[in-house]
């Protein structure tokens, strides 16, 4: 059907509702918006008419096939209209409609309106009623991959819901890996990776594997916020969620080597700051000095060279450590 504009769709074959014999019995209801007088919609006479009839049908509570068709017209004109979606659900239930047909319809609508809360929510309600998620992975994959928006928040949410509710984790890591390969900076994909891996459980082996995976990604693109957040996030899962950064010597070596080689990505430096800060607070007061000085030096570099826009934050980090260490000394 793929129409590209309301004018086109409502152009050639369109017959005004006021001229349809099977709608003769309905008195359309004009819009009453409250604070401002009725706005005359120069944009489209058809738009106004469809919604006047929609209002009339909702007011009368009619739940017939023609009411369903009317909601289809109304939603084509304004797919964000939440009330029409709700009414459509009531009509579908009353008509005991074929919900698989509804899924097909929704696939098309989502294809054209993938950034819209209402269409995704409606889809979810239908899938829940059918208790059949067999199309949901393909639907969301379509939205994320083929539609070219791999960060679509609604699509990811829907996908997570389907996977969690119907236990569809099996192939998800492969899907995530594909997306990360296509765009390593796709934060949504990294988030999804954490979602899957968390479900699998953070065993030492899995942690090891994930750290290797992430370090390989960082080797390719070093200045990648998502990868660094993921790296630290996974590291922290060790030791039942209490792991210190320095309990992963291979990661520490990896990062320090990058630093030695001249890399100054703010995320790399932030990692080292966290690492040395943590260590400084753990060791005896006499040993903390050298580590603390590393932190102050790196914070100074961030504030003056590598991340100047956030200099106040880096100044805070240095001062905060100073305060914590002097408190420790006093004990």
């Amino acid at each position, binding site marked *: 059907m793929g129409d590209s504009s309301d004018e086109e769709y409502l152009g050639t074959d369109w017959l005004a509702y006021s001229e349809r014999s099977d709608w003769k019995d309905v008195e359309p209801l004009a819009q009453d918006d409250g*604070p401002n007088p009725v706005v005359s919609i120069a944009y489209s006479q058809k738009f106004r008419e469809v919604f006047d009839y929609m209002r009339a049908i909702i007011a009368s509570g009619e739940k017939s096939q023609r009411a369903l068709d009317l909601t289809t017209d109304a939603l084509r004109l304004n797919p964000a209209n939440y009330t029409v979606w709700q009414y459509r659900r009531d009509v579908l239930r009353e008509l005991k409609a074929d919900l698989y047909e509804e899924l097909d319809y929704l696939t098309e609508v989502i294809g054209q309106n993938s950034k819209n809360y209402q269409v995704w929510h409606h889809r979810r*309600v239908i899938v829940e009623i059918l208790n059949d998620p067999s199309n949901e992975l393909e639907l969301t994959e379509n939205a994320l991959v083929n539609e070219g928006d791999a*960060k679509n928040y609604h699509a*990811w949410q829907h996908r997570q819901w389907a996977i969690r509710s119907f236990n569809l984790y099996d192939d998800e890591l492969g899907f995530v890996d594909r997306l990360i390969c296509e765009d390593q*900076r796709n934060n949504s994909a990294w988030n999804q990776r954490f979602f899957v891996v968390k479900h699998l459980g953070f065993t030492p082996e899995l942690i090891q594997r994930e750290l290797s995976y992430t370090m390989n990604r960082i080797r390719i693109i070093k200045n990648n916020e998502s990868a660094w957040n993921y790296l630290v996030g996974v590291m922290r899962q060790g030791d039942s969620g209490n792991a210190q950064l320095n309990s992963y010597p291979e990661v520490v070596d990896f990062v320090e080597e990058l630093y030695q080689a001249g890399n100054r990505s703010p995320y790399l430096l932030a990692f080292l700051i966290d690492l040395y800060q943590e260590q400084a607070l753990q060791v005896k007061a006499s040993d903390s000095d050298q580590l603390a000085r590393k932190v102050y030096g790196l914070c100074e570099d961030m504030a003056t060279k590598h991340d100047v826009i*956030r200099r106040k934050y880096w100044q805070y980090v240095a001062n905060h450590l100073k305060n914590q260490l002097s408190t420790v000394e006093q004990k």
Partner: protein
Amino acid sequence: MDFTTFVKPSNGGGDGGDGDADGGGQKLQFWKHVEYIENHGKQEDDYEYCMTEFLRMSGIYWGTTALDIMGQLERLERKSIIEFVKRCQCPNTGGFAPCEGHDPHLLYTLSAIQILCTYDALEEIDREAVVRFVVGLQQPDGSFFGDKWGEVDTRFSFCAVASLTLLGRMEETIDVEKAVKFVLSCCNQTDGGFGSKPGAESHAGLIYCCVGFFSLTHRMHLLDVDKLGWWLCERQLPSGGLNGRPEKLPDVCYSWWVLASLTIMGRLHWISSEKLQQFILSCQDTETGGFSDRTGNMPDIFHTLFGIGGLSLLGHSGLKAINPTLCMPQYIIDRLGIKPQRLPRP
């Protein structure tokens, strides 16, 4: 708080469309914005106004709040707005619809209450019915449905506690502990941020809702403020604008959500204020007034409120103070005797 449907398509060959043009300007086009908001919906050819009927209540809240921050609230008709709000209260459920003929929802219930607080007219509606509506939406796991259709989202947790706080009915209504537990379950261990549901990606708009939630329930100690504060100040791009998640484009509405969150957390100074102000001001439409999501696009009332709100938080002259937790003029929050928790600057 419909974060995505309000992004306008790029206004390709539009007038004064590039950020460098003097049209964008570094000065706040104060009276242009007043005019834009006042006339919102009055134009003949207002397609956008009709398309957004389903969120009219929020539209009115955005407009009244923006005008009040600019000291121009009297330009709107108090009486007819209050009458409109009253007509939207559902007699069965107690909740508010966005407009007559629509069903009630938590989002529009909060907007309705915010409008009535602005006009000091809470007694005009059935407040107990609103409380019942909100309480009835809480689920066993502490989360909140938006309405009977069962969508769960941390936005709704915020709407619930904000509505009840403004009504002065937080005591012995919802189960606050469970509500807190649910919001905490939406915290992401990788970055300290929050998504819409457990497992969902951290997103600045949802972080605002969760930080606001903790502010209203006086549980800010449950946040890793330094970690989250860092993630939030990382939203600032070299252009000075703020995005909502890593590697996304800046948008004026994040000037509100990120800034308000940082303000509540006592870390507003972690953002470069001068650069952000420049970005926000570059999103003004100097012909029609109003703010758009980013430089060169079409303005709308949603981004206008958040542009003005962001500028107020940054201390721009000529604007009243705005409360970061409730996104309402501070003098109104003071008048109501409400004191959301706010952390001091470290």
